[in-house]
């Protein structure tokens, strides 16, 4: 296993731990997006560009956006 792969795997483990350890929902969303970005690099390094593209689009853009909007909507609802 190359140094690149080992480094990316460690980064993925760190990013995943970051998601679990962040307790504030908004921070958790950004931790999730960061984890998605690391996974994108890992998939790309493992020669799976198709999966990497899907992860990039869904994991770092679409899902975090929907989570952020849901959090905003919840806060608005609570204020009413």
């Amino acid at each position, binding site marked *: *296993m190359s140094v690149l*792969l080992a480094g990316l795997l460690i980064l993925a483990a760190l990013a995943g731990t970051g998601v679990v350890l962040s307790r504030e929902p908004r921070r958790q969303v950004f931790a999730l997006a960061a984890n998605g970005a690391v996974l994108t690099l890992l998939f790309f390094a493992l020669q799976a*560009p*198709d999966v990497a*593209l*899907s992860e990039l*689009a*869904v994991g770092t*853009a*679409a899902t975090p*956006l*929907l989570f952020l*909007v*849901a959090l*905003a*909507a919840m806060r*608005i609802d609570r*204020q009413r």
Partner: protein
Amino acid sequence: MKPGLRVALFAVAVLCLVPAVWHVAAAMPPFGSETAQYGMVVNKLGPELRHISNMVSAVNFDFRGLDTIGEEFMLVGAVTGAVLLLRGSRGENIADRADVIAGRAVVGRAESTILICRVFGPLLLLFGLYMALHATVTPGGGFQGGVMLASGLVLAYLGEGYRGWRRLVGSRVMDLFEGGGAFVFALAGLAPMAAGAAFLENVLPLGKFKDVFSGGLMLIENAGVAFAVTGGFTLLFLEFLEETRVVVKGDGGAEERR
């Protein structure tokens, strides 16, 4: 369920699953080993039988096309469900306007944000189109391209404001994309049957290897996926973001504030 009971259930499940998982994991090729047999077979057969150079598309749209049609309808079902739930409480009238909720702070956008979105929005849309069109040649395809197109449209919201973006995507066009894309995919399966072939059988001319228009029926299925995913994700973004706005009944022609 009491926590103790839950942990006990979890322990039982782990005890049952671990031997089976271990059995399968031990039989897997080691990490980083050369391409598995299935991959080699597909790599050999794809260019020969289907004249295409992106084997992931060959598997997704042809060799295992039936699986993809299932996924396609799962996506359509999920998006339709979300839209029904969210739009249901708001109503169907597209002439309604979305306004800022009273008392909610409006944060202005920096000029640099507008600049970045105006530069990268069109570029992202262009790249998404490229990706969706070149499904049979290079990595990516209708799904990836579709999500990029939807994300590129979101940049229009970030750059131009909610009003402009809503007018851009809040019509019936995205509904049509979403349902029509899935319809095209289903039709691509059923049409060969009318000609006496099997469901999803690749009956169209396959084209030239490494050409954009190679792959025959796969191109049509891919276009269906691209439309459905673009429409589906844009609808999701729109219906979610509408939850942070207040609906003003009206003819839609009146001036919105922001």
